[in-house]
């Protein structure tokens, strides 16, 4: 039963509950018209304390496509937070006006505080560098629909694996499925944190290897999940110059990749995927953004109990 629940952490839902959301998303994808009024009269509050074009628009599009309406703010300066109002007080007020809320906040744990102080469902739309569970739903729905399965996959994750919350959540979420192997591709400065290795990968006996260069492993991958490597994360210029090309996906590297490998990226992209790749049928990142909207449609409908 998902009605009335919150989504704060990507692991809040069981595999069965995730399956329920994905199946519902599939129904929406199949026949969107059928669902275009199921949230008539309902309001989604989007409380964005920091700017985010993609996530906010995706939430708003999702609610509008379900027939609901949207209100909210897109930066802290245009809310009472600028006057010093607490998250707890803001959510208590907002629940007088809305039926469900999506919150993005720069502080880690802010969405949890909102959920603890609200009777309505709260969705974490990103809390600092901590969690971004609807991105994980998006990623899983994309993999499930394009690869046809969430099991028996070799997943390469490339780029900044140290600070990327998307990556950490994806590893946790995929570790619950059968026969998943990770190939973690990152410079020494940006390898996956130890706690993810110990508490997620080793604890669940998930096979993984760590490498420094994408071209050494690209031929083994079913999925390549790209993230951005920022120059300022490197300790010295020399290492950056030596390694930067390893983290830029181009046509030459794609020659070695499997015919059915898919390329994913949480977006926005800067230069880590060459624009020439966009035409490659294996490039799935814009489709991934669309799946993000469907995933949020299914989530909102389920949490509101509008699917019945």
């Amino acid at each position: 039963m998902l009605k009335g629940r919150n989504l704060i952490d990507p692991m809040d839902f069981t595999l069965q509950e995730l399956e329920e959301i994905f199946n519902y998303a599939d129904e929406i994808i199949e026949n969107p018209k059928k669902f275009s009024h199921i949230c008539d009269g309902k309001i989604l509050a989007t409380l964005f304390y920091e700017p985010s074009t993609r996530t906010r628009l995706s939430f708003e599009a999702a609610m509008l496509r379900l027939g609901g309406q949207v209100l909210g703010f897109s930066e802290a300066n245009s809310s009472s937070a600028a006057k010093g109002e607490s998250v707890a007080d803001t959510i208590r007020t907002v629940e007088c006006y809305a039926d469900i809320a999506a919150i993005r906040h720069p502080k880690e744990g802010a969405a949890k505080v909102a959920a603890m102080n609200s009777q309505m469902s709260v969705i974490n739309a990103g809390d600092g560098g901590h969690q971004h569970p609807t991105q994980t739903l998006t990623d899983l729905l994309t993999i499930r629909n394009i690869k046809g399965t969430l099991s028996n996959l070799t997943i390469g994750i490339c780029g900044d694996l140290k600070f990327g919350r998307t990556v950490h959540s994806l590893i946790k979420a995929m570790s619950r499925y059968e026969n998943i192997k990770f190939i973690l591709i990152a410079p020494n400065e940006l390898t996956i944190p130890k706690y993810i290795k110990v508490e997620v990968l080793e604890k669940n006996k998930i096979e993984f290897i760590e490498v420094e260069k994408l071209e050494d492993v690209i031929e083994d991958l079913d999925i390549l999940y790209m993230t951005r490597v920022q120059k300022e994360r490197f300790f010295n210029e020399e290492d950056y110059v030596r390694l930067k090309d390893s983290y830029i996906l181009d046509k030459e590297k794609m020659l070695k990749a499997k015919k059915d490998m898919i390329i994913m990226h949480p977006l926005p992209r800067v230069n880590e995927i060459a624009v020439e790749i966009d035409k490659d049928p294996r490039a799935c990142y814009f489709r991934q953004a669309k799946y993000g909207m469907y995933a949020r449609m299914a989530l909102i409908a389920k949490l509101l109990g509008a699917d019945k």
Partner: protein
Amino acid sequence: MVTINSIKRGIVIDHIKAGVGLKIFNYLGLDKAEFTVALIMNAPSKKIGRKDIIKIENEIDIDFTVLGFIDPNITINIITGEKIESKVKLNLPDKIENVIKCNNPRCITSTEQEIQHSFYLSNRENGEYRCMYCDEVNNNNNVS
């Protein structure tokens, strides 16, 4: 050695790791106690070399759970008629509230004043606690 009289009725908190006694003393608010209290520091111990001891001549409500977080190796002796009536062995509690504050500057608890500071035991083997909001690892060195 300093001699402290045995107590007739009350509580003896024993086997406190040397140096932690004052922390516990302060945490329990014993500095404001109106009854007799003794804090013994650096007493010799066969078990742990040096230890701190707190003796309380009265019955007070002690949150044993929290003491387990501060130092799980301490023992609590309940004294009646100058004899040990019972011993309480402490364990690491699954959850603690408002004992330590999260040391992650990016945590919501650093800016919102009214939030309870809650932590959950994430690894019993090494006594690791994580903030319930941001999941940052914190330990009992943060007890103020």
